[in-house]
């Protein structure tokens, strides 16, 4: 088991390096966009003096290296900084009641995790069940229907699926609300009710990937000799798949689930905007719009960390699910 810890440590170190590279890429990319925070926030009022004043206030007039490294040093000491919008506001007010990026993101992140959680609760069991059934009845009408439906839903843009769901489930048949403005202190039932439409949209988006992977992994195994043996013993096809094939197909399935869970955290931007869900995606869009680099960086780090950690978890789980990997020679 020692080797697992070694792998975890090694992967975490690599992850930290990845995060740093991501932060450099984001920093360069945001700075490469035309316009900056001062111009974005001032709009038509962007006279040369006003722009220069804000740049000086926020330290935007320093060179890229100084700005990036001072940010990096702060992050390494656990300080994600203060958003430009807050700092600009403070220099205007002369006040000191600043909200840090962490406090700004925390409630949004919680909301996004809630949405991702609700979606995962639907999407994972549904896709695995569909995948198993599709493998069991492969090439039947059922298999084709499931494939066509899930592939069409993954191929449609998210906002399109969202609007169709709004049309069907909120406008024509008012079952769920089209606005998902959940907030702190809302009763769980009400919160679930309001989260339903974005969760359904995301379910439609992620199901196909997981379901197809489950189906493919199982079908792949069905040709192996031990499955043939099981069949010859006279075991029912359902039991062959669930008891004999599925445990051996877990590794690829876990990987694809992890990838999709990461997507649920990072890919919700469009869905959050359409449903007015106060998650991290909306904050991200707002911040990119005004080139608020500290917030954009923090959001990107969270997104990247979600991918890295979930992939790491998937690798560990696939090692644990496979005795051959658990006891390497």
């Amino acid at each position, binding site marked *: 088991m020692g080797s697992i810890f070694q792998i975890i440590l090694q992967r975490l170190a690599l992850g930290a390096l990845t995060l740093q590279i991501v932060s450099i890429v984001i920093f360069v990319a945001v700075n490469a*966009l*035309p*316009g900056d925070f001062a*111009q*974005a926030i*001032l*709009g*038509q*009022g*962007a*006279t*040369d003096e*006003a*722009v220069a*004043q*804000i740049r000086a206030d926020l330290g935007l007039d320093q060179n890229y290296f100084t700005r990036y490294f001072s940010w990096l040093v702060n992050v390494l000491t656990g300080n994600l900084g203060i*958003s430009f*919008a*807050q700092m*600009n*506001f403070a*220099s*205007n*007010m*002369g*006040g000191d*009641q600043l909200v840090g990026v962490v406090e*700004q993101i925390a409630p949004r992140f919680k909301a996004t995790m809630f949405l991702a959680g609700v979606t995962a609760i639907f999407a994972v069991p549904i896709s695995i069940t569909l995948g198993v059934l599709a493998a069991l009845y492969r090439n039947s009408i059922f298999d084709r229907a499931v494939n066509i439906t899930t592939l069409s839903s993954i191929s449609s843009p998210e906002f399109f699926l969202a*609007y169709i769901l*709004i049309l069907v489930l*909120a*406008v024509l048949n*008012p079952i769920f*609300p*089209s*606005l998902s*403005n959940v*907030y*702190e202190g809302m009763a769980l039932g009400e919160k679930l009710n309001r989260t339903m439409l974005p969760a359904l949209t995301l379910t439609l988006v992620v199901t196909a990937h997981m379901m197809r992977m489950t189906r493919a992994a199982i079908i792949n195994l069905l040709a192996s000799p031990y499955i043939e043996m099981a069949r010859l013993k006279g075991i029912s096809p359902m039991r062959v798949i669930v008891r004999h094939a599925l445990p051996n197909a877990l590794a690829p399935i876990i990987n694809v689930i992890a990838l999709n869970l990461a997507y649920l955290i990072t890919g919700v931007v469009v869905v959050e*905007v*359409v*449903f*007015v869900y*106060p998650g991290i995606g*909306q*904050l991200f869009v*707002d*911040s990119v719009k*005004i080139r608020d680099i500290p917030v954009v960086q923090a959001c990107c780090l969270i997104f990247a960390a979600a991918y890295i950690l979930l992939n790491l978890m998937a690798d560990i789980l696939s090692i644990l699910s496979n005795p051959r990997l658990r006891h390497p020679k």
Partner: protein
Amino acid sequence: MSQFSRRGLLKTGAAAGVIAATGLPAKSAAKRGGKLRMGLNGANTSDSFDGRTHSDQFMIHMGHGTVFDCLTEVTASGELVGELAESWEASSDAKTWTFNLRKGVTFHNGKSFGADDVIASLSMHTEEGAKSAAKPIVAAITEMKKMNDHQIQFTLSAGNADFPFLLSDYHILMYPAGMIDEAIAKGIGTGLYKVVSFDPGVRCVLARVDSHYKDGRAGWFDEIECIAINDSSARMNALMTGQVDAVNRVDFKTEPLLRANPNIEIFEVTGNMQYTFPMLTNQAPFNDINVRKALKYGIDRQEMVDKILQGHGMIGNDHPIGPANQYLATEIPQIELDLDKAKFHMKEAGLTELNVELSASDAAFTGAVDASQLYQASAKSAGININVVQEPADGYWSNVWLKKGWCACYWSGRATEDWMFSTAYESGVPWNDTHWENARFQELLLTARAELDSNKRREQYTEMQLICSQEGGTIIPMFANTVDAASTKLAHGPDIGNIWQMDSSRLTERWWFA
């Protein structure tokens, strides 16, 4: 159309360009009760109750007229009345103004309102480093003298007849002196509604105060929940599915669908929002007045209103005064597409052909690039070749506007003629986006500013509009309507304010549940 100016111009039919000055009838007598849910755009995570930073609809609405009050207020029908000021009086040169404040008013924390609060609240705008849009207004005050607790005297650096009008500006909110930071953080004002919870960029929940000086005149809702919905389709859906009672900024493309819904009322007013094409008049070829005139006659204004605004607007006449101003001159001749006149002025300028570049981006206004292309098509037959240059939206205001010879632009307009002219038309001011200078115009601007006789002012402003329209360097083809929508469960008075969206951002205090 006798009360044309400053009346809520409501367009009831879909017919393009037809503006009827008919207020919708009040549905019933106003009554208290109910929880208003409103979906507004223009919300940001950086929002706060600092009036100096307010620039977008969400906070403008939550600020003045909801949680806070100003000294003066413009009613839905366009009259200036006192809000926290009861009355005021000017010296004959309009330089010294004495304001009597309302007595017995308290802030939401129980502190009583008086002259000290006014002085502290106004001083916020001229503080060192403050970036307030209302700074020029307050900076013009040279002295604020407290006569007694409820009387205050302002001395201005120069006479300004519009001074009480300027104090109705949504930036100039009244805060409790000595606790301004706390008031900004918690939202402590004298308004009809006090803050229950405020999550910037997400939502704001408010409750009616128990008693208020506007009781019986305004503030009919018990509770208000204002939800930030920046996405336009989401906002329209929320209204269609009954999750909110009112929304701002109706998307012109989905407007017919909303109109078809019997439970929704669309309210549309023409205010001062204008889409413009300023040219730098100190640069060739625009320094030639005949070139400017040829360009003025080469644009089809009605086509712009029909195609760019899809009928939701009115044609402009190359001066910036709109229906939400006091002295809009309707009698001056309207410039129309006239290719013969355009050719005549080309000849006067000694040109057979004119090649100009027009820089545009949708950052200037929605449809600016399309509008420029329409302009290109209509001017072509007069020998004017407009080369439309599509500029990037990012940095447009820093790199294109005021820099390129001719570009697309917009102005949300100003509440007074003087304010508008002195922001963008006075010679030498930084935002004079045409670098235009005209001696007569400049002279009139200064005399009209200190003129207290409104008849004389009307004459002066009319002449200024005429000069602007005929000689100025800005082409103003259209004024865009503000189009908002509400559930028919809501009712309102006969007029709807046209200074800002949502009944001049006072829907929360003026409307009620029928």
